[in-house]
């Protein structure tokens, strides 16, 4: 039995001068109780597929042909009025950003009640009871009280729960979840995905899970559709797809993800180029221009989606071999082995504190937000130190303190033994920052060439010719063509903009580069390009990196040493390989457990969401150990005494009363400065 049957769906968007075929003749089925994953890069038509099923297309969009049958009923033929009945009752949707999809001026209760009453002939009281019931169903603590709250009073994870509650209010048969966890932290992501799975089983819904994250999909989808340039290029059961991708695009996508167990010496595989413009797609196979296996035939003839045994289908003339040993990642250039022996210390931060005064609600005692409370770390020359943690843990603030954008409330930062303080804390020629959002960090009114010229002009480096030569050298180093200099930032894609941001940060030849979430705004395939670039630049220019990221797989790929932050404090520091293999702090262990891995078997073997709850408030942190409210091992002492950062074997240190690894008694307590 099938629940949803999409046949030859074609959706077009009219633009001023041309028509974009965002979805170009796709067909697939979803059975009740089944989760089908839809993956691909951004701009490949994933979201448009979801919107077409819901018939929630933008005003310039229309379904050009094909059918969408939900339980034997063709949705494309319904009137808008009938369709409104279907939405919410039969099909519901959960979006990426719960803040923009909830109405900020209405209480949560009213929004759910409204949704219920729209589809069911019930009284207000009954609808209210139903609202409480669904809020309970999605794991909202104290649902009765939450009903009268507004969306802004909730955290991101709780808002997403409300969104799901809203979608489930009328028990739809099909749930379309469009990047439901992309905006959330890993630990919260694990909770939400777990919730979706549980609800699917309980209500035997069909779920269409749209995401760019292969890790998310590995553990939660039964079947996967890979979409590229408006078409489905491969479809297969999850396990088969991961074990043995047949389409080169699928293979490339899988190769581009930094895996937890990838050898750090290997380069990530990057997919060169960008998806085509769908107003004017290339003739023949649409992936051919980016495909390493493309032949002359691919450029002229369009491969059809051909079914093979075992429920698989792919559209390629040169599929990857059907049976192969485990996918080996081709190493193009082995990374230079990190210099042995103790390197000299470049940057040292000791006991950094940063507090922000909050506007007080009355006279006098304004409260303070303690973003960073006592972080000490050392970074050796040439190494990559990574700061990881959930959002709100103070890692970005620490980064801003290190580069000198903010002045610490207390504590010192020294570079090469020289204290950075006051106006002297900004060191343009020594420390630079790479920003998270490359579109916000480049002046929109400045051509790229001028943006790159600025640092040199400000610092009065060389004459005009020397500056131009330097710019030409850097733009080449980051892999952009020379004509890029004459263009404006908005003319570039996200990955290209991040390259420009890197080039600008490196213009003055700094020794230390702090990168704040350098790839989290980018697509997976582009992420790997930028990560590879960062590594090769580090080697060729002898850079020292401090990488700030919530993404532990990215960190794993880049970092030599890792500092795990929780609520303004470092809870664990150590060499990356040790921390990943033998986490000593329960928080680190939970964080590692929560990362979705692109490996269906490993993903399914995991126990339910490893870290419950959410980050407590930094205004009023818990007494004693700050992690105790979420810690599975917490005991009485944790509430009373704050554990100091103590060294354990292998150069690791951790701040825990009950570390998962034996503390090392021999070493003296030297804080985080274990190099």
């Amino acid at each position, binding site marked *: 039995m099938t629940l949803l049957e999409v046949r030859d769906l074609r959706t077009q968007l009219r*633009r001023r001068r*041309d028509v*974009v075929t965002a979805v170009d003749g796709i067909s697939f089925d979803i059975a009740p109780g089944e989760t089908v994953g839809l993956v691909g890069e*951004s*701009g490949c038509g994933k*979201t448009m597929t979801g*919107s077409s099923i*819901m018939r*929630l*297309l*933008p*005003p310039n969009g229309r379904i050009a042909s094909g059918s969408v049958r939900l339980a034997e009923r063709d949705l494309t033929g319904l009137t808008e009025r009938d369709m409104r009945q279907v*939405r*919410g009752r039969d099909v*519901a*949707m959960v*979006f990426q950003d719960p803040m*923009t*999809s*909830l*109405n900020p001026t209405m209480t949560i209760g009213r929004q759910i009640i*409204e*949704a219920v009453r729209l589809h069911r002939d019930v009284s207000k009281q009954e609808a209210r009871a139903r609202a409480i019931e669904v809020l309970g169903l999605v794991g909202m603590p104290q649902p009765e009280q939450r009903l009268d709250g507004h969306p802004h009073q909730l955290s991101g994870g709780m808002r997403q729960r409300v969104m799901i509650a*809203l979608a489930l209010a009328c028990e739809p048969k099909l749930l379309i979840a469009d990047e439901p966890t992309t905006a959330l932290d890993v630990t919260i992501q694990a909770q939400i995905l777990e919730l979706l799975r549980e609800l699917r089983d309980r209500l035997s819904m069909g779920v269409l899970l749209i995401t760019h994250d292969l890790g998310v999909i590995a553990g939660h989808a039964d079947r996967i559709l890979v979409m590229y340039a408006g078409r489905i290029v491969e479809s297969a059961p999850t396990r088969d797809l991961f074990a043995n991708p047949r389409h080169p695009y699928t293979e490339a996508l899988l190769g581009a993800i930094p895996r937890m167990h990838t050898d750090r010496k290997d380069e990530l595989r990057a997919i060169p180029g*960008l*998806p*085509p*413009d*769908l*107003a004017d797609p290339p003739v023949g196979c649409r992936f051919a221009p980016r495909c390493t296996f493309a032949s002359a035939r691919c450029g002229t003839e369009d491969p059809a989606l051909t079914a093979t045994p075992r429920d698989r289908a792919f559209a390629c003339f040169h599929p990857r071999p059907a049976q192969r040993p485990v996918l080996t990642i081709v190493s193009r250039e082995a990374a230079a082995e990190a210099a042995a022996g103790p390197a000299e210390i470049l940057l040292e931060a000791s006991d950094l504190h940063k507090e922000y005064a909050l506007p007080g609600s009355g006279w006098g005692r304004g409260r303070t937000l303690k973003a960073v409370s006592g972080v000490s770390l050392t970074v050796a020359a040439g190494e990559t130190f990574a700061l990881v943690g959930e959002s709100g843990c103070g890692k970005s603030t620490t980064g801003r303190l290190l580069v000198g*954008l903010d002045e610490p409330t207390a504590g010192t930062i020294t570079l090469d033994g020289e204290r950075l303080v006051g106006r002297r804390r*900004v060191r*343009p020629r020594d*420390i*630079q*920052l790479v*920003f998270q*959002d490359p*579109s*916000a*960090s*480049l*002046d*929109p*009114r*400045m051509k790229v060439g001028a943006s790159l010229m*600025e*640092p040199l002009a*400000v*610092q009065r480096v060389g004459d005009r010719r020397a500056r131009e030569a330097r710019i030409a050298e850097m733009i080449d180093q980051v892999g952009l063509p020379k004509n890029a200099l004459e263009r404006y*930032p*908005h*003319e*570039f*894609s*996200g990955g290209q*903009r991040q390259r420009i941001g890197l080039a*600008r940060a490196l*213009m*003055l030849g700094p020794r230390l580069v702090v990168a704040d979430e350098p790839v989290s705004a980018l697509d997976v395939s582009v992420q790997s390009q930028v990560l590879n670039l960062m590594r090769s630049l580090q080697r060729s220019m002898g850079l020292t990196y401090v990488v700030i990221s919530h993404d532990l797989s990215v960190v794993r790929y880049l970092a030599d040493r890792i500092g795990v932050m929780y609520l303004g404090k470092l809870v664990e520091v150590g060499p990356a390989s040790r921390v990943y293999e033998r986490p000593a702090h329960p928080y680190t262990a939970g964080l590692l457990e929560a990362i979705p891995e692109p490996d269906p078997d490993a993903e399914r073997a995991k126990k339910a969401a490893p870290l419950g709850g959410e980050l407590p408030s930094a205004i009023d942190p818990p007494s004693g150990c700050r992690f105790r409210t979420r810690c599975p091992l917490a005991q009485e002492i944790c509430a009373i005494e704050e554990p100091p950062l103590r060294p354990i074997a292998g150069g690791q240190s951790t701040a825990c009363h009950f570390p998962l690894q034996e503390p090392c008694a021999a070493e003296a307590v030297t804080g985080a400065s274990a190099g």
Partner: protein
Amino acid sequence: MTSIDRQDAETVPAAGPAMVAAPAARTRRRRGSSLGAVFARGGLVQGAVLAALVLFLLVVVVFPAWITPGDPTASVGGALLGPSPTHLFGTDSLGRDVLTRTVWGANPILFASVTGILISTVIGVSLGLLGGMTNGFVSGLVMRILDVMLALPALLIALMVVAIVGTGVTSIVIAVGVAYIPAFARVVYSSVKRLRTADYIAAARLFGSSRPRTVARHLLPNLATEIAVVASSAVGWAVLTATTLSFLGFGVSLPAPDWGVDLSAGGQFLETAWWISTFPGLAITATILLSNYLGDYVSSILDPRHTIRVRQPWLPA
């Protein structure tokens, strides 16, 4: 329902052109940046009509003799003659041609409003930058001064200026210039507050750009659109303030032609000779309308997403 809201929100890229996905960005490059395409955003026909009208107004202001060669202060025949083929707009109480006076009368008003707006743009933008880029005392001082100015109607400020400087076109220029300072300062101040936390400003700080340099290289270019949009609308308000002041007798001295003066002079003959006041009045209305349309047009070509809010802060009482 909420999901529909979301859909609408999704079709509008959240934060300006930078957020557009790569394929869209590519198309933009192909056709977006030529001057013709920029003007096409506001509509080519509208642009041509507006340009023609502005050009006409410019001729009226700079070379009034090209249109009406006669002397606006000379009597040309009988007093209070109605509109006729010889005197299209009629004559006034002293037998002067109303059409000639209306054409010549544009100069003092438009000179005063445009120059006044230029002055208030320069001072207002500077104050806005000063207030926005500083913290604590200086910023507070600037903003409190602006608050006081905002609390007083523009006309009252203008009257105070006239009281100090005396009457004449120059004092109207100064009056308009002072009165519209808060309009610019406020807009610039709030944008600077928003922009100064932008990543690219932080990046400039990190490579050691001094504050004045950051303002000149990064802030002002990003504010230019906003300033242009506000200025082109503000001219309309300034015309109203300038005519009001000259209506009250603070502008040019008789017998020189001026819309405000003539409007006021015709007031006592409204029942017998409506044309004396009506034609200068229509000229004022048309100019203000033109300025408003121009403001809309400038805004639609420079700011197609309508992110800038031009509020009419206060109308002269």
